[in-house]
């Protein structure tokens, strides 16, 4: 069975999704879906273990050999992203039942679980496949299901938010598909590894440049790189808390993974950075994103929206690391992808606890909530420190690599900007902490009680993990470093 690990990773959630529809009974479905998510997580742990001991794991779909058939190809970066996505998927769904009964009509819970599992399937599929067209298919699976998930939000604004995301997401996906089509036209293959070797033969053809442009812009839209982030704040604000926590921690991260795989794996660092000068585009955009989005976050009254803008800024950090195109920079990008997923997932889950008790996530209503819900807000505070990048938290590790990467290149202004932007994060995080802990309880906060354990424990697991990976970096930054070196060597 061990040789089937890569495909099991995908088909366990994929088969569980329709089974949820057949089971239908709420408790049965929730229990079953949570079980399926944890099995998926277990499989990704086994897969990472295999990659660490034996190197790249391959799987031929339907027994068709690689350049012709669809091949699943798991290297260190894939396994790392798979572990992250499936882990977040399992923890967030464990957190979900109580929050869901408050925010989504009970009659839809079985559909929610089904769509959630499909979204998980899509995100995992993107990370595991070695076939470029397959990436697009899984991208659409995850995107379509995330539109449905967002639209389940209780407020009326959830529908326009989902629709806006649908329009933007479809434009992004179309650009990606055009890019893939042009690449296929040039090389006659869809297998990424094969494509990377064949690209050398058609070097300098304009079609390649156009394909590169379309693909990069499409992915930038999907991962909400400033200024293509417009869909993100509304989508995160109005989606159910559970969905926000899941998507914020996984969807944009997987898009960053696609960018890495495509730029470094298929086109190679020499083409993209030395000849095309991708840095001159990515660097200013990511810096602008960091500064602008962090500043906008400071002025938000709705804390979910504030965290959404903070996410846009954090994507900026990841892309900034990638734009260095050095081993340290890439490590920073990859490790921040991991660390930020833990931090932001934990923060949005804490917001889910607040939403459950207050029925609001406005900063005015959150006044004094720290006294009523100490464990929830303590988790929020620790997560917030991670966002700022305080030592001991995972966020510090990312920033440390990022600044080290900038200094290696002697880009002092960039390092200074990263430090200054941390001060912006300090402002928006402190604003919430001050309101929650030092102000008199608001009307809503007076009657609030601590969130139930079924939600607190998963929240603390993620927040605890963000501390754990701030102290024990061998598993996160260590793997990220190896993955970054492999990417720079140009293996797809």
């Amino acid at each position, binding site marked *: 069975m061990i040789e089937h690990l890569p495909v099991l990773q995908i088909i366990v959630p994929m088969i569980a999704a329709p089974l949820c529809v057949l089971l239908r009974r709420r408790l049965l479905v929730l229990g079953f879906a949570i079980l399926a998510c944890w099995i998926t997580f277990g499989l990704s742990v086994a897969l990472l273990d295999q990659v660490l001991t034996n190197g790249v794991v391959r799987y031929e779909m339907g*027994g068709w050999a690689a350049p012709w058939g669809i091949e699943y190809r798991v290297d260190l970066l894939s396994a790392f992203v798979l572990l992250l996505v499936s882990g977040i998927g399992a923890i967030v769904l464990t957190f979900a039942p109580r929050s869901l009964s408050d925010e989504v009509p009970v009659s839809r819970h079985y559909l929610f679980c089904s769509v959630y599992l499909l979204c998980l399937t899509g995100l995992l599929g993107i990370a595991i496949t070695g076939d470029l067209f397959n990436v697009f298919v899984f991208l659409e699976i995850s995107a379509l299901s995330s539109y449905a998930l967002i639209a389940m939000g209780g407020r009326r604004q959830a529908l326009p938010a989902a629709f806006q995301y649908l329009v933007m997401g479809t434009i992004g996906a179309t650009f990606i598909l055009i890019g893939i089509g042009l690449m296929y036209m040039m090389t006659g293959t869809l297998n990424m590894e094969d494509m990377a070797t064949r690209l050398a033969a058609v070097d300098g053809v304009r079609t390649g440049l156009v394909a590169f442009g379309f693909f990069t812009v499409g992915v930038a839209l999907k991962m909400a790189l400033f200024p293509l982030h417009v869909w993100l704040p509304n989508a995160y604000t109005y989606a159910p808390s559970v969905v926000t926590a899941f998507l914020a921690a996984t969807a944009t991260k997987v898009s960053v993974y696609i960018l890495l795989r495509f730029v470094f794996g298929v086109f190679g660092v020499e083409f993209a950075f030395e000849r095309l000068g991708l840095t001159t585009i990515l660097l200013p955009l990511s810096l602008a994103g960091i500064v602008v989005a962090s500043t906008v976050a400071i002025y938000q009254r709705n804390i979910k929206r504030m965290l959404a803008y903070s996410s846009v800024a954090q994507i900026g950090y990841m892309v900034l690391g990638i734009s260095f195109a050095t081993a340290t920079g890439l490590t920073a990008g990859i490790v921040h992808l991991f660390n930020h997923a833990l931090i932001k997932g934990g923060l949005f889950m804490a917001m889910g606890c607040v939403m459950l008790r207050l029925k609001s996530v406005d900063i005015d209503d959150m006044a004094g909530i720290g006294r009523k819900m100490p464990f929830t807000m303590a988790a929020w505070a620790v997560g917030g420190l991670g966002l700022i990048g305080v030592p001991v938290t995972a966020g510090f590790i990312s920033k440390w690599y990022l600044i080290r990467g900038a200094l290696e290149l002697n880009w002092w202004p960039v390092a200074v900007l990263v430090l200054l932007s941390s001060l912006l994060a300090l402002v928006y995080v402190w604003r919430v902490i001050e309101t929650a802990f030092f102000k008199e309880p608001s009307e809503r906060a007076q009657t609030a009680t601590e969130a139930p354990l079924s939600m607190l424990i998963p929240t603390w697991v993620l927040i605890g993990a963000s501390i754990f990976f701030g102290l024990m970096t061998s598993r996160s930054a260590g793997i990220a470093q190896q993955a970054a070196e492999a990417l720079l060597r140009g293996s797809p």
Partner: protein
Amino acid sequence: MTDHTILRVVTKLLIPFVLLFALYVQFHGDYGPGGGFQAGVIFAAGFVVYGLIFGLAEVRRVAPARVVEIFIAAGLLIFAGTGVVTMLKGGNFLEYGALNPAHPAEGQHLGILIIELGVGITVAAVMIAIYSAFAGRGRA
């Protein structure tokens, strides 16, 4: 449309042939143009015509929402289940040859026939679900 006798009679006459043609496209897909997706759409078209002439309530009596939902899930399960069976028989996921180790070519025929059936069922059910979701907007 109670007074449009011609429409009602012609529709009733046509629908069996529409459904039959859908089955033809489904199972002839191995040899000619066709396959699960097209067949599913044609099959659902039969229901849509029925709904346009006789009303949504009648369609829902034939195909209740819950039944349609079950078929959506069942089609996907047939497809993925075929893959699991090939794995249990010692092949890779969706390696149809493993269905009939003595004659791999026959196994491939069988495998494709089954997964196309799964596609057809899901597509038809999704089409009916979309139609009744749009037509039923504003009603319960």
